[in-house]
């Protein structure tokens, strides 16, 4: 019988091959070395902690995006969810509601919008990219209709310690990221729900055949991404103390990019949270380093875009001779 060694996938945070995670770690070390040589400011505690705080919302949303993409779905409307949740939060603060009411309100708004996406893709059978494109338009329209180009500003910073605080020598934002990823990891690797996600991503008909409630699983997963988007909105408001019209415009595509860079297959069925986290780190460090070097931030998008194409091409080439890869 096969060895019952500690290769149990159950315990792994990484993908079964771990090659993508290792490649990303190498890439991160490489760019860090380049930036350290190029700029004296890069390798300072202050700069690195700032970079992490700037990546807080992206890393949280990407954890949920990983689950959705593993399931074979996608959500391009997540920026709209962050925006609408932020408006709910801003308006609630303006109405004088206390933080312990505003927080669940913001999380619930995100969850409801995510569940809406899940409902449209499963019950109305709209392909997820189209369904969430539609809801992206709706959500951004809601934002314009409600705040009409103005900012909601002067919001209380009650939750700011979650972003800016320190727990001893540990930045609070690192702790928030750790908690979110730990929860997502338990969902994905420790519960039957996670196995069902992978199964749906591998082959939806076979998941249905063995009696998995595919529709419910999908709606739950989109709702979970919505919940994390609501959390991201809370932290955004805590960090910025305002809600402005550009909120969340890039986060959906960045989260998808981080997830794909991290080794999650866009076709579903394969992926790891560690890969995604490393993908987020890579994207944010690139952005930070290029700014420090005085290079236009447009180049950062060019680099991320090119990397995505390289990664997907490499995957396609590797699967070319494998008829079982769809």
């Amino acid at each position: 019988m096969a060895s019952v060694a500690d290769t149990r996938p159950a315990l792994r945070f990484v993908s079964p091959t771990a090659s993508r995670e290792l490649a990303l770690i190498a890439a991160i070390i490489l760019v860090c070395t380049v930036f350290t040589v190029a700029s004296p400011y890069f390798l300072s505690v202050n700069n690195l902690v700032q970079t992490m705080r700037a990546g807080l919302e992206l890393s949280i949303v990407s954890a949920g995006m990983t689950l959705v993409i593993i399931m074979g779905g996608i959500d391009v409307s997540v920026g709209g969810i962050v925006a609408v949740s932020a408006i709910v939060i801003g308006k609630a603060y303006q109405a004088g509601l206390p933080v312990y009411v505003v927080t669940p309100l913001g999380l619930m708004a995100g969850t409801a919008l995510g569940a809406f996406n899940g409902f449209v893709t499963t019950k109305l059978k709209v392909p997820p990219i189209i369904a969430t494109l539609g809801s992206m338009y709706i959500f951004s329209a809601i934002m314009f209709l409600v705040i009409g180009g103005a900012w909601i500003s002067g919001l209380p910073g009650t939750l700011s310690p979650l972003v800016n605080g320190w727990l001893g020598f540990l930045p609070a934002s690192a702790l928030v990221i750790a908690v979110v990823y730990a929860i997502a990891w338990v969902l994905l690797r420790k519960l039957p729900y996670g196995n069902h996600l992978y199964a749906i991503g591998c082959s939806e008909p076979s998941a249905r055949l063995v009696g998995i409630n595919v529709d419910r699983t999908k709606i739950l997963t989109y709702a979970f991404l919505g919940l994390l988007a609501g959390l991201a909105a809370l932290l955004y408001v805590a960090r910025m103390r305002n809600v402005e019209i550009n909120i969340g415009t890039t986060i959906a595509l960045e989260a998808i990019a981080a997830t794909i860079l991290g080794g999650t297959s866009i076709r579903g069925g394969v992926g790891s949270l560690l890969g995604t986290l490393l993908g987020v780190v890579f994207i944010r460090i690139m952005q930070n380093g290029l700014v420090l070097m005085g290079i236009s931030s447009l180049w950062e998008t060019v680099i991320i875009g090119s990397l995505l194409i390289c990664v997907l091409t490499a995957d396609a080439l590797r699967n070319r001779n494998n008829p079982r890869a769809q």
Partner: protein
Amino acid sequence: MVFKMIGIVKRFGGLTALDHVDFEVGSGEVMALVGDNGAGKSTLIKTMSGAHAPDEGTIEMEGKLVRFRSPQDAWESGIATIFQELALAGKMTVVDNIFLGREIRKPVLGIPFLDRQAMRKRTGELLQQLDVHVPSIDSWVESMSGGQRQGVAIARALNMDARLIIMDEPTAALAVAEVRKVLEFIKTLRTQGKSVVLISHNIQDVFEVSDRISVMRHGRCIAVRETAKTTPQEIIGLITGAHEVRAAAS
């Protein structure tokens, strides 16, 4: 009889795919189902497995009248169909596949954590019981040979407590040694009292493992023969309709 279909009719528009088919499988019996392309074999097994609802006729499983609205209904009645495409999740491990949808849980504070230890142990037992050899129960099913994947699919059916296992062309596209292995699986199932329906184009395989043979032609079940009392020539004659030609000539 474990499983019995009486007077099954299935029409697709103007085409009658199944024309009053009677079909039955005994307990611990391997029933082969043969017929030419388009004879109605696929439609019949889809009716057995819950993928199609018959327009007329009744289905009995273990003496109880059943009506399948979906493949899950059939699974729950103890009928497992191992389709050609196998319905395994390629990028998941053997353990995960066998327990998909039937995970063993070990609740902690009401949270249904997976009991990997128990699932791994049971997987080992199932594979041993069937004499399936896989590189590792933690490897992806996608990386395995056709025969090994058949073994995993059968192990999953056993784990779901299937009493009737329908195998659709299990030996097609397999290497010779693998075909041997799959035929061994079928014999093992019989010794464990499971009933098997084997759909195959390969008459040699059919004669090696089956107890009885049902022949389909033009949407009807035209003959049932005991394997020990018939010959490949007779069966091929029934499949191709040569006996009709002879009858007409004489």
